[in-house]
């Protein structure tokens, strides 16, 4: 069977996300309940979650989650990991057997610290060093796949309905200040768990609903900068775009939104001088990172979440607030399910980023 990445697999989807801006942890149960409402938007062929602030005891360490096809691959991969990291702690991820979730790979978790000497010799900053190790494993070690690699956060995903995947990973036993989640409706039958969403690189994760028509223009551009789009999914290419613009170029997320979903030139012309100056620059500077076609994404990162729609708003997104809690979902019902009484509910405009961050971002570190 062809793995995800050997073909392109357009998907429709459901997304949901929540953050408690006071930084108070909440159980993954809430996300499971929320996404379950949108069961109809998935087809049982992919679901996943990202939780932030879930590993407070190991928050200085990179938490790698890996899929292995077999034990031998795990052994080989661990040899590679040991050459680049100190393994502070590792174990198989505890799961719950469910009749609806089958054919799971071997799933392990490692808490890692880069070997100081290796890191120094690489002349890379630490995050780039870690990112390259992740890329190496994913591109070069067949049968192994790193699907989560940030600090104090984790991705949990697989083939199945998202609520089942949540139960499978026992997410009710994890607590985090923010959660994002995804239910997938792929048009092919992916047999491989790595193809499910969220897609993550370091602490940045992305869940996405839609199929972008600019895919190959975006992919061929971003691959100039050392990224390799091995999964060939929209989510992957968008994650790389965000990583490139934020981590390598130094843009803010709001500026990233103006690159990926810029206003039409005609609209820009009606804006204030300062907005025009900035938006025209960003469009001119990164024309190949304009993303067209329907998309609604939720980006999770350390200390916050961002929601963004394509500029024609071809996919639905609803945002809501209740005290310190903030929500994003494909449908309002998914929010109401977990917080019936809301202070504010609104549908953001196409191309208008909505960012919810911890009141005290430092506290998340």
């Amino acid at each position, binding site marked *: 069977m062809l793995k995800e990445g050997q073909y392109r697999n*357009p998907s429709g989807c459901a997304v949901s996300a929540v953050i408690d801006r006071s930084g108070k942890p909440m159980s993954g149960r809430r996300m499971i309940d929320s996404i379950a409402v949108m069961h109809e938007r998935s087809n049982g062929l992919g679901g996943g979650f990202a939780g932030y602030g879930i590993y407070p005891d190991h928050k200085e360490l990179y938490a790698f989650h890996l899929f292995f096809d077999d034990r031998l691959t795990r052994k080989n991969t661990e040899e590679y990991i040991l050459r680049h990291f100190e393994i502070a702690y590792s174990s198989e991820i505890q799961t719950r057997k469910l009749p609806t979730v089958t054919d799971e790979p071997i799933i392990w978790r490692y808490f890692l610290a880069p070997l100081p000497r290796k890191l120094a010799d690489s002349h890379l900053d630490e995050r780039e060093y870690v990112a390259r190790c992740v890329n190496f494993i994913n591109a070069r070690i067949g049968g192994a796949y790193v699907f989560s690699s940030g600090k104090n956060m984790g991705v949990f995903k697989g083939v199945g309905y998202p609520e089942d995947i949540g139960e499978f990973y026992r997410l009710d036993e994890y607590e985090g200040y923010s959660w994002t989640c995804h239910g997938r409706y792929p048009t092919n039958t992916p047999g491989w768990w790595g193809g499910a969403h969220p897609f993550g690189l370091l602490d940045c994760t992305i869940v996405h609903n839609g199929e972008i028509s600019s*895919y190959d223009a975006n992919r061929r551009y971003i691959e*100039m900068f050392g990224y390799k789009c091995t999964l*060939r999914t929209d989510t992957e290419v968008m994650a790389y775009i965000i990583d490139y613009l934020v981590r390598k170029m130094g843009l803010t997320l709001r500026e990233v939104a103006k690159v990926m979903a810029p206003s039409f*030139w005609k609209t820009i012309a009606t804006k204030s001088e300062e907005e025009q100056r900035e938006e025209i620059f960003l469009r001119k500077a990164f024309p190949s990172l304009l*993303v067209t076609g329907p998309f609604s994404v939720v980006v999770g990162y350390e200390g916050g979440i961002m929601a963004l729609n394509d500029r024609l708003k071809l996919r639905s997104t609803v945002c809501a607030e209740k005290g310190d809690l903030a929500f994003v979902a494909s449908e309002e019902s998914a929010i109401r399910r977990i917080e019936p009484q809301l202070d504010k509910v609104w549908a953001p405009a196409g191309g208008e980023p909505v960012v919810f961050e911890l009141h005290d971002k430092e506290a998340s570190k």
Partner: protein
Amino acid sequence: MKVRYILPAFEVLRDESKCVNCRLCERECANGVHSFDSERGRMIANDAKCVDCHRCVCTCPTGALKIAETKDVYRSNANWSRAAIDEIYRQAESGGVLLSSMGNPDTYPEFWNRLLINASQVTNPPIDPLREPMETQVRLGSGRVKIERDENGRLKTALPPQLELQVPVMFSAMSYGSVSYNVHAALARAAKELGIYYNTGEGGLHRDLYGYGDHTIVQVASGRFGVFREYLDAAAAIEIKMGQGAKPGIGGHLPAAKITPAVARTRMIPEGSDAISPAPHHDIYSIEDLRQLVMSVKEATGCRKPVIVKVAAVHNIEAIASGIARSGADVIAIDGFRGGTGAAPTRIRDNVGIPVELALARVDDRLREEGVRDNVSIVVGGSIRSSADMLKAIALGADACYIGTAALISLGCHLCRSCHTGICNWGIATQIPDLVARLDPDEGARRLVNLVTAWKHELEEMMGCMGINSVEALRGNRLMLRGIGMTESELRLLGVKPAGESM
């Protein structure tokens, strides 16, 4: 006894029942095909002089005329075509190098027609361009930026100079001298109205057209005709012409007969003397020398204008483009082997160079592999015949297209390929005042504006059907293309999948 070796290729067919002997055809044909036989009281034609430009057919008020290919045949021979035989007769007679005009007409394979375009169905929506916004603007120039902020954290927004086009198409270089003043005037007016650019070619910029400078690309070619400070200052961008698709590796040669006083003044050369462009720029014998000319042009214009380097599509185009992308140039223009010309040696036109589709795909790949695609924009020309060709070029990786032949056809050119004779009954490739006057620059501009506007609508339709509403998202989007009837290696070189293969 005088033997004619070469027989007329065309026959002028006159319907005697329709002809009213108005003698308009006689006045319209500067080749002297038509005349009135007063003895017999009717029009007659000298087929040998006919170049099949169709001027007489198009102007005949009663529709009495047709031009047909001659029914006279040489003994058929799959190896020796009539053209091949006639060319030998010509050379045996004259001892000359065969000279031809316009683009390579031979039966080489071409690839635009073997590329098919994608459309959205179900998994994402097509967009209706009549009601939803659709962006066809593009910017040409170096896009290489560093993100920097001022002390207040605001983005610094300085960018290298760029050209802004409302439609990703420009009128390619055609020099005043090879074409008439009225052609230039029509191109300039249309470019201004369309929000695009026309290119002067290497023959300088006529004084009267300086007002269109904001929509003018001026060329610096090896002969440096008409190149001086005001010329450079007047333009929106400067193109250094290294080569031309119709005649890669050779220079130009405008015979004295075409050098009227106005042409001489514009080229800044004496009247009556040939205008010869050397094959190379004699200050450029290597890639670092190109950088020297690029930078000196930039210095001469205060680094305020983008510099384009135009090269012909040749075997080693990838490496050449890679060098240009590092030369300080802002735009690379690639001209394919089907590109037109006012005159080129037949053998060069028909045998040298490669198709622009392949050159474009490889250059775009190479620049991306080397991480320098942002340094430059890519403009391609050399037989872009329709908006579909244009769209496919952009999906292969071009930022915009140059059209020359298509623009001339819209002005009336019937591709008779006789430009090198200096006689053009459509007033295009000629300097003969009576003929030039046949082309009204306002009417010409109107037709050019119509052509490009129609292409813009078609581009919007095709982009919409694939769910794209901005040219940026089409550029290099090769998944939107599929190849049909191509070999494996052609598909590999173009970087597209075969039709029928899924995403």
